[in-house]
């Protein structure tokens, strides 16, 4: 980097700076979306479908509309603009268009004086439904040709043969992001036919684009604002309540607020794709991969959402971080009558990783080679071609190093003892220590950073020097991940000024920063902030003829020559940047090309204690070595690692949205959709491998998804190690351990 500050900045890059929203969040003073209020606001409530598929034969909102305190009721017919939304293909009706396509689909929304009245009115709407046979099986959807996208990979010689072959089917259940903060929003009419909207978003500009189309507004008539989110994990990449409350606000002329309860939240936001996968690995006697074939079907649910991009990830990371000269993949994402699937931490790489890593373990067993040694022999390194797309790795990629680093960490040697909290079954007192078997498993994951497939991926930022510091303006979204701290640290290090504040601009004030997803904001929003800050510093130095800048002002030869206040008066210095990462390409018809801008790798090791007779698992320890480029904030980075591990481990052993045969959801509550608690979360040791990349700020790489990706197969591998069971399905249920095949 060209940045050079004469003095050492406090709270810059590399320090565990305390996040500005941390204390307010802990003390309850932080304003989350559901804390928003406006004078005279109405409350919205949603009427949802209770079947997975059906035709609405009668929809009567008369009784609801006539109830005292009810101001408006909207249905599909009331949508003034394009009545379909969706960020890639607008195929999701803003409200049910006459055919119910999934359980929980929104049919009508009521605005009333208070939440209870709104809820009662929503219940009072008459919805007569003629039930139709739902499509709940992905193979059936494929037979019907209901495919959102087929991503083929054809690379190398289809006739190539290895000495050893392993083949297997794998299946993964549906995971929910389960963010603690459910969806909430506030829409305030501006009195001139437009509206200001605060909603659950990971990318306000793409929301804006969809919303103006659906609402029939001119772009300047809608401003989408950013406010406090209680987690996202992909669940806020697609619209939920935004269109509804904005429309109600426009129609009633009153501010409209909605706050989903957990059941609404489970119904409304996209899920992680359930998957069914078949794999065939062929290797030579030394364990070098000769050919990998895979057929993957992901359940896209009723509407497209981001499925097209998810399936590209599943296909292109189908082999994992390994070399293989001959690769043939058919990856499909299909339409069913399940709730729509979309983005979730890992974005398609998780499913591929589970199947591919399970295969690598089986291959190792077949060959009699240590599983880690097998991975090292095939490890993808810079200069190698990705097994699927053929893209040559040009950036640092320490695959072997993360594997060796995690393997070098000491194993926990302590026996579980008789403390029930350290035994499978926990407080349930199911398991005496002598019934416990320990297992150890490894898995390695790879993930692309930022957007792929030729997408024009950019982020804007503005850095403005003020009388007493600097402001960073951005529309990049803090979802709880700590981006705000990272942007402050980058700006501090680049400017030399410590007093930096991040201002989250609405869509009318600055251009897009892209989505807070795809592990991209440290590099993308951070990249824009870095360049804007560098430009602001250069401008300040040039204006004052100085050689250094700090919180006092511009210095020359150790003397202050102009204060920040004077600078601000003379300037003002305000530098805007639109930052783009190196270009990518769309795949050719064989899935080949430079689809991804960059990669990161991580290796996990899981240690579990299993009660094989009851099929209960306690995770003892999870360790990780991760390729992070350069650490911007060590504490936050470790926080992302621990949170990601909890999420990926949850999918391995307990988290599943269970569908009944009729396509409805059996467990849309936290009573039965089980998330790991603190008692389920093991200690985590993390090795941060720093090999600076070339385009991220200070060499940083995005890192927030990978901790979730390879932990799932690592935990399952550890359970297999303990039990000898094949365990082809995630989450692993007690009955799978007890009755499953060896």
């Amino acid at each position: 980097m060209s940045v050079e500050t004469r003095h050492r900045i406090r709270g810059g890059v590399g320090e565990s700076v305390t996040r500005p929203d941390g204390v307010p969040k802990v003390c309850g003073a932080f304003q989350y979306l559901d804390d928003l209020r406006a004078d005279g606001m109405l409350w919205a409530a949603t009427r949802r479908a209770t079947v997975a598929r059906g035709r609405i034969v009668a929809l009567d909102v008369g009784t609801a509309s006539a109830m005292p305190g009810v101001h408006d009721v909207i249905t599909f017919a009331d949508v003034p603009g394009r009545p379909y939304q969706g960020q890639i293909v607008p195929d999701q009706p803003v409200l049910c268009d006459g055919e119910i396509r999934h359980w929980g689909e929104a049919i009508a929304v009521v605005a009333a004086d208070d939440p209870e009245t709104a809820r009662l009115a929503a219940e009072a709407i008459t919805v007569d439904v003629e039930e139709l046979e739902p499509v709940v099986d992905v193979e059936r959807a494929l037979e019907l040709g209901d495919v959102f996208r087929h991503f083929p990979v054809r690379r190398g010689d289809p006739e190539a043969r290895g000495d050893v072959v392993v083949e297997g089917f794998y299946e993964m259940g549906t995971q929910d992001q389960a963010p603690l903060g459910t969806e909430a929003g506030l829409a305030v009419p501006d009195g001139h036919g437009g509206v200001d909207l605060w909603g659950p978003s990971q990318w306000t500009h793409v929301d804006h684009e969809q919303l103006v189309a659906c609402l029939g507004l001119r772009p300047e008539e809608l401003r989408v604002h950013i406010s406090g989110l209680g987690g996202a994990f992909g669940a806020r990449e697609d619209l939920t309540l935004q269109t509804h409350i904005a429309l109600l606000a426009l129609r009633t002329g009153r501010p409209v607020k909605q706050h989903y309860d957990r059941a609404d939240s489970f119904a409304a936001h996209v899920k992680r794709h359930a998957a069914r996968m078949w794999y065939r690995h062929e290797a030579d006697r030394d364990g070098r991969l000769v050919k990998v074939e895979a057929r993957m079907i992901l359940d896209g649910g009723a509407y497209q959402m981001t499925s097209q991009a998810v399936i590209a990830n599943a296909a292109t990371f189908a082999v994992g971080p390994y070399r293989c000269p001959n690769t043939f993949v058919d990856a499909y994402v299909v339409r069913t009558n399940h709730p729509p699937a979309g983005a979730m931490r890992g974005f398609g790489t998780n499913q591929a990783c589970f199947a591919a890593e399970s295969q690598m373990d089986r291959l190792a067993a077949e060959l009699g080679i240590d599983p880690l040694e097998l991975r090292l022999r095939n490890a993808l390194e810079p200069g190698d071609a990705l097994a699927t797309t053929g893209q040559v790795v040009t950036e640092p990629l320490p695959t072997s190093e993360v594997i060796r680093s995690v393997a070098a960490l000491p194993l926990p040697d302590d026996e579980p003892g008789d403390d029930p909290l350290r035994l499978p079954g926990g407080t349930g007192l199911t398991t005496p220590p002598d019934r416990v078997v320990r297992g150890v498993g490894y898995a390695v994951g790879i993930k692309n950073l930022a957007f792929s497939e030729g997408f024009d991926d950019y982020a804007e930022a503005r850095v403005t020097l003020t009388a007493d510091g600097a402001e960073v303006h951005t529309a990049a979204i803090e979802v709880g991940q700590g981006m705000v701290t990272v942007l402050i640290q980058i700006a501090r290090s680049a400017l030399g000024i410590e007093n930096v504040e991040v201002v989250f601009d609405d869509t009318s004030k600055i251009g897009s920063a892209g989505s807070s997803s795809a592990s991209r904001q440290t590099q993308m929003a951070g990249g824009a902030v870095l360049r804007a800050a560098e430009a602001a510093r250069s401008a300040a130095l040039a204006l004052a003829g100085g050689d250094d800048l700090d919180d006092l002002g511009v210095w020359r030869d150790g003397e202050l020559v102009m204060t920040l206040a004077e600078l601000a008066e003379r300037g003002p210095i305000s530098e805007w940047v639109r930052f783009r990462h190196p270009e990518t390409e769309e795949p050719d018809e064989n899935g080949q090309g430079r689809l991804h801008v960059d990669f990161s790798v991580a290796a996990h090791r899981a240690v579990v204690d299993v009660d094989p007779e009851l099929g209960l698992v306690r995770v003892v320890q999870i360790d990780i070595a991760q390729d992070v480029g350069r650490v911007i904030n060590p504490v936050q980075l470790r926080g992302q690692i621990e949170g990601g591990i909890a999420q990926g481990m949850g999918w391995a052993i307990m988290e599943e949205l269970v569908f009944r045969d009729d396509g409805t959801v059996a467990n849309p509550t936290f009573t039965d959709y089980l998330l790991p608690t603190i008692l389920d979360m093991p200690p985590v040791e993390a090795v941060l491998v720093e090999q600076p990349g070339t385009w991220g700020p200070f060499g940083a790489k995005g890192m927030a998804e990978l901790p979730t990706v390879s932990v799932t197969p690592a935990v399952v591998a550890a359970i297999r190690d303990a039990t000898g069971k094949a365990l082809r399905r995630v989450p692993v249920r007690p009955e799978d351990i007890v009755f499953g095949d060896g």
Partner: protein
Amino acid sequence: MEYVRPKALGEALDALAAFDDPTPLAGGTDLMVEVNLNHRRPDVVVSLRSLDELRRWDDTWIGAGVTFARLEGADDPALAQLARTVGSPQIRAAATLGGNLGTASPAADSLPFLAAADAHVVLKSTAGERRLRWDEFFVGPKQTVRRPDELIVGVELPSRPERQAFAKVGVRQAMVISMVSCCVLRDPSGPTRVALGSVGPTVLRATDAEEVASQAARLTDTDLDEFQRRVSAEVRPITDHRSTAEYRRHAAGVVARRALERCLR
């Protein structure tokens, strides 16, 4: 909605008699979930919060208003063990034994202990008192014989052996609805009672298994195998989103045997 907060038991019984379909409210940990999920919208709520009479607890009696947080300190080991598995600390601070009985979920954590102990549920109303053995009180999933004008005031506990064990199977280390729960009470000379939850429409006793276990002060591995087999044979589980009938049947035998083994040590 009408809300009544009687100051004494008599007032509470009057209130229950005065309204059509009154809903008693103690800790609210079941009721409020139902309300929040929109499954229930009570017209009249009778709060039991001020009724000290319901909080009495000694060796032979547990008042309906005793919270699970208090029961964690019980002298009966199985009672303390089960109390520890109920929800989270916040739930246990509010939830009461009476609520567990009133809701009568097949998965209710206290019921295996009460069934194994042959507890009697005591109901009061302005019309008088009814004393029902546990198996007369529970008639189906979330179904009891309590009339709307009756209040569960507590349970009578007959004398029971000190050797006790409770176990509950769930996929989380804590704060989980049971897939199977089990309580074993054993007299050192042999007599044994075993009750299981989440494996039938109501809590149930595995009487055939009890017979095997009760026959001797010392049990052989063959006896234990037979005990386990009979428990698995006697339970009546279903398959739902929490587990399969096949697993529950298997796990019931395993945990019952292990609970018995704990009593034998």
